[in-house]
């Protein structure tokens, strides 16, 4: 009837009894919206392709079944009813179905009171679902730094999936499984934090319920004050690294990034301090240095008689070269440069990021950074750094800076690479791959084909070997360490498992480049082979121990962790504390021995360094100054900054901090020195300077012994050591 009057591109339909003219290519949902009728929906968002899966927007078009209005195109003469009893009843049932599985109030409802499902259910009187509840929980995923996932609150509306794949083209999120057990999954159903998610936040702002919510971390805001200027979300979106990140997401993380101005001479951060932020320099130059003396604690004293005038002093390796000390080793710090042993100072400039480890893993600051000119920098918390690090452009820029400035130092820092020719290093700069791993992620499995060689750039890598009934940690590798050569030089398979302990970044040299390198530079080959042989031998020796001990009987007391124990025979011990006093006397009044610990049969296993199988003390050292020698003894390198993390990490209290008074630059008066207390970590050194450990020597009752548990206890248990 009105056909002749209808302008081209428009059609006439009837909406709830009202004749309306709407664009011919629109949907019923949009036609209703244009005419002031709001149809409820959960799966439809205006900026996404409609999928029609929640079915809440159904309307009656006179057909056998109702039509989902978000996906239903209008047709000329269509008669649509959006609010009949039939329609409202069906919607209410749908809400009731979803609510019966909904953890009400969900995280979104608790945080901001705007869970769309709960709001619609309340309006429809479906808040108290009559259906049976879900019996098996689908679980939560807490692995992402920025976003909390609660699969139980997920209604599979597909909004996050379209946000990720369609809106942001990040292609991380999808549906998995089928029927009632269907759910959302990141990549191959990885935990979100381990997935290729770039933390753009689009999924979270698309989510109608508490399935994907912003994670509130402790201290989400950096205090804004003079010299620290906060940002609005809109300002942030102007910065290239935040392009593509959801504005709402940035809004939620407001305060987690500030712009700071430092005047020349200002201290930006100090070594050893705990912190939670990273800095990105925009303008100006800064000096990064270590002010703690580069030296280790040396206990000197006579080897005879009682311990009259023993004293500990700080000595550098020029004066006291210890076993296996490597001359040219550089000091790794939490920035894109390494410091030289002899002159631990470097310069940072625009485009440099530092404090990444502190921010991501909460390790102490590894070095002091002082403004050399006026400096402008972003200071940011983990959520924001995570977003930035996952930004491909920023990532690329950081990687480029690293290749340009640090890779060469990094390679040269490994002594056996000193002979690499400049052209080969240039080649490597282009061909190496920079890889990142999330905490707990496997880098390589024991038995995997060995196809690459790795240098650790950031973080800690656990190298471990499996044996029946357990796992033996062979080493923790940190910045400047390398691994993978054994497999490449040897049988072509990984001999140990490599796992990221925390936020880890590696430089991967392909098997091809590696083979090229060892072919061209025979000295490199020799060096690597020597180290590989040493490592293999040491590993074998350790595994040997593991095999010879009745594991089950030892493990419960944790004694197996030890490879050398100080034991006190309680039948002889009179608790006179002579051993403790002797230890204190031997170490400037600071004992490294506490007469307390686990009991095993008649023996008390005293807490002095046990040289554990899983040396937790080595995890987290911001400058990589704690390692163990092939003898398994823990050694603190000269560049220890005294932050105390290793002492805190040792579960047995065996590492202590030893304060020294030293002269340092006085910031008030340039060029002048002032006294300051600097700490150095120490651990039981087995009194190597003495014939016998002082504690054992001092025991008047022959109760203190230092033993190797595998032989000592094996005998006691009636199982002599194998062979």
């Amino acid at each position, binding site marked *: 009837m009105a056909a002749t009057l209808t302008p081209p591109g428009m059609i006439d339909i009837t909406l709830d009894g009202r004749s309306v003219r709407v664009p011919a290519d629109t949907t019923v949902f949009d036609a209703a919206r244009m005419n002031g009728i709001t149809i409820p929906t959960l799966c439809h968002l205006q900026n996404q392709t409609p*999928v*029609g*899966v*929640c*079915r*809440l927007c*159904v309307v009656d078009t006179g057909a056998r*079944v*109702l039509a*989902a209005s978000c*996906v*239903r*195109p209008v047709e000329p003469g269509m008669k649509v009813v959006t609010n009949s009893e*039939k329609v409202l*009843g*069906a919607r209410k*049932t*749908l809400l009731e*179905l*979803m609510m*019966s*599985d909904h953890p009400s109030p969900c995280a979104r409802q608790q945080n901001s009171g705007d869970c769309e499902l709960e709001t619609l259910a309340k309006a429809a009187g479906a808040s108290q679902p*009559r*259906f*049976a509840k879900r*019996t*098996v929980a689908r679980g939560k995923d807490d692995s992402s730094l920025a976003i909390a996932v609660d699969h139980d609150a997920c*209604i*599979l509306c597909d909004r996050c999936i379209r946000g990720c*794949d369609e809106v942001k083209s990040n*292609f*991380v*999120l*999808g*549906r*998995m*499984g*089928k*029927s*009632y*057990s*269907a759910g959302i*999954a*990141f*990549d*191959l*159903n990885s935990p979100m934090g381990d997935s*290729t998610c770039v933390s753009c936040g689009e999924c979270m702002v698309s989510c109608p319920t508490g399935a994907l919510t912003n994670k509130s971390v402790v201290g989400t805001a950096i205090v804004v004050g003079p010299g620290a200027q906060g940002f609005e979300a809109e300002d942030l979106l102007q910065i290239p690294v935040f392009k593509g990140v959801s504005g709402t997401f940035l809004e939620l993380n407001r305060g987690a990034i500030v712009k700071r101005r430092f005047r020349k001479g200002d201290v930006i951060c100090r070594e050893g301090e705990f912190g939670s932020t990273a800095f990105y320099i925009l303008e100006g130059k800064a000096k990064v240095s270590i002010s703690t003396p580069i030296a280790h604690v040396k206990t000197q004293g006579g080897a005879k008689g009682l311990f009259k005038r023993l004293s500990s002093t700080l000595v550098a390796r020029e004066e006291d070269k210890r076993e296996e000390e490597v001359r040219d080793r550089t000091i790794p710090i939490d920035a894109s440069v390494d410091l030289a042993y002899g002159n631990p100072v470097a310069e940072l400039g625009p485009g440099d990021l530092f404090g990444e480890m502190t921010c991501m893993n909460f390790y102490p600051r590894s070095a002091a950074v002082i403004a050399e000119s006026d400096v402008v920098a972003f200071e940011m918390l983990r959520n924001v750094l995570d977003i930035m690090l996952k930004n491909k452009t920023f990532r690329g820029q950081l990687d480029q800076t690293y290749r340009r400035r640090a890779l060469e130092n990094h390679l040269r820092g490994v002594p056996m690479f000193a002979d690499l020719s400049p052209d080969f290093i240039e080649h490597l700069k282009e061909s190496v791959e920079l890889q990142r791993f999330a905490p707990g992620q496997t880098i390589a499995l024991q038995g995997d084909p060995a196809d690459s060689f790795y240098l650790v750039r950031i973080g800690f890598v656990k190298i471990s070997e499996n044996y029946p009934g357990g796992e033996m940690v062979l080493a923790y590798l940190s910045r400047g360490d390398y691994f993978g050569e054994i497999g490449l030089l040897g049988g072509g398979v990984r001999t140990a498992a490599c796992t990221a302990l925390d936020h880890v970044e590696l430089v991967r040299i392909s098997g091809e480049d590696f083979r090229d390198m060892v072919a061209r530079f025979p000295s490199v080959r020799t060096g690597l082979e020597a180290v590989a042989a040493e490592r293999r031998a040491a590993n074998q020796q350790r595994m040997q121990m593991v095999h010879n001990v009745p594991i089950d009987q030892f493990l419960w007391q944790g004694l197996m962790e030890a490879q050398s124990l100080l034991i006190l025979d309680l039948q002889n011990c009179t608790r006179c504390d002579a051993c403790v006093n002797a230890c204190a006397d031997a170490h400037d009044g600071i004992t490294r021995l506490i007469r307390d610990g686990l009991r095993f049969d008649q023996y008390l296993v005293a807490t002095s360094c046990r040289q554990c199988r899983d040396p937790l003390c080595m995890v987290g050292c911001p400058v990589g100054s704690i390692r163990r020698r092939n003898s398994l003894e823990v050694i603190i390198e000269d560049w220890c900054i005294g932050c105390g993390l290793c002492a805190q990490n040792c579960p047995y209290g065996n590492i202590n901090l030893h304060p020294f008074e030293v002269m340092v630059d006085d910031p008030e008066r340039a060029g002048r020195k002032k006294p300051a207390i600097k700490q150095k970590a120490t651990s039981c050194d087995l009194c190597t300077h003495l014939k016998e450990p002082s504690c054992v020597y001092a025991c008047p009752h022959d109760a203190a012994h230092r033993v190797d548990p595998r032989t000592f206890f094996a005998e006691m248990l009636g199982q002599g050591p194998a062979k």
Partner: protein
Amino acid sequence: MSKRTSLSVVVCRGFSTPLRARRGAVIFDDLRAIQLRYGFLPKAELEGLSQRNQTPLYQIHSVASFYPHFHLAPPPKAEIRVCADMSCHLNGACELRADLERRFANSRPEEVQIRDVSCLGRCDHAPAISINDHIFTVVTAAHAELIARSAIRGDDIHEPHPEQARIACKADPYGEDEKYGVVRKLIPSKAWDDVLAQLKAAELKGMGGAGFPTSMKWDLVRKQPDPVKYVVCNADESEPGTIKDRFIMTNLPHLLIEGMIIAGLVTGAKRGIVYIRHEYHLQEEILGEEIRRCYRSGLLGKKILGSDLDFDLEVFVSPGGYICGEESALIEAIEGHRAEPRNKPPFPGQIGLWQKPTVINNVETFINVPQILARSVDWFVAQGAGGSRGLKFVGVSGHVARPGIFEVSMGVPMRDVIFNHAGGVRGGRQLKSFAPSGPSSGYLPASMIDVRLDFKALAEAGSMLGSGAIVVCDDTTCMLDMALNAVRFYRNESCGKCVPCRVGSQKMADMLVRWTQGGVPESQYRADLSLLGELSQAMSLTSICGLGQIAPAPIQSVLKHFRAEVDAHVLRSQCPSGICFTPAARAGEAQRLGIRP
């Protein structure tokens, strides 16, 4: 080791090479290759695949986790799956499974896993099981144990292919040398309009269940301006009780191919695909052979029979799942996606496979076309009984003396089919009820045995002709148990895309489980009945596809025809058939609770 892997691979072949290059996103071939090598899909391999194909990881996982025949974890040496649906359920599948669980109670999960599986399409030889994707029919627990033990030892196991002599069918208009007579005549005449006119005059309807007029469907596709079109044959019959297409493909493969060629010629489609369920290994071989024969004799390929017309045909083996029988889900599967039904409109006739106009018909629909064209519309009309038209293949299973597939006149009374063709109720027991077409048709009581096998007659009886999957229940059957069995089937086979079907089918199953346990207070039962009514209404009205829309049918039909039995069950814990509330039933129930892994 390699033996085990080679078994699981038989399962899902995709296309033979011709289409590969055009299938961009299809990843089944790659997944299969990986599964062939490792026995499952290791993460590292999928990551490699993602790199090579530039396919996001999530896409690979969303597909691999959707289809039951991809293993994301190493499978056991013997994976025993017991068909849990209607006909097998009526023939002791529960007891079989319980017996097997006992026999393997001390086995480690790396050796044996026993699970339920949806209908394997062997309803006439119930109970059926699959071991490492090889199907064994009419099995006893002792026999199954023997096979599984040999699989655990690493021996090769083989699926028995029962000797199937070609059975002469009335539907076949041809003698041995006359095959493809219609196509031979049609090609020189190019009388496409005449074909449509004859199909219209014959009132040929879709035989897959919906009964949509075939001439209208073909005409719609014919009128689409797009030069690229497809013809797809839906040979994915997976509704419990449905076995007729298996029979047709075994005995009349040439009629299916001819029907598809005609569809291609009439609509202008140059490519056809037979989408066959992966459990039909034998039929896949038979069809493949017939297709190769047609290529050799110039009936398929470029310039058919020397004309300027092309038509290529190939077989696509489904990666599995009842939902793939839904036409738009089937298209999604061919495209390499999760088989999730599309929102309609648009219909496949407008936007179908790879966004092109597509004819999708059931196997039986296609074979009717050459029948009508080779003989005449009058012949077709005369084949029916009581005013109905044509012949119908039906599968009869459950408690009958001679389960099988029968070619009958459309319109014959159900009594004739069940009592004459299928030999009546087994063991001289009384007929209690029958489902004219699997769970989707609901259950009719014995009193309605004279209803005619016809679209209209069954619709008027509150049921449907569907796919001719007649399942017969004798007087030892608990109808509430049968309703729960059907709901579980829908719940397990729901694709999970839309809320009413995904969540509703689970909640409905939860409620019926509670009911079968009996002792429900009357007030609670009343509240449940009203809630069930609301739920059924919402599922039927708002689900995207037929699966969710029809899922309430079995329980609604049982409430309609067997209300007193349900009441006794729920309120008074009495099972009139005496099969529930026994210790054995309770044990079996405990086992089945929850979702299948």
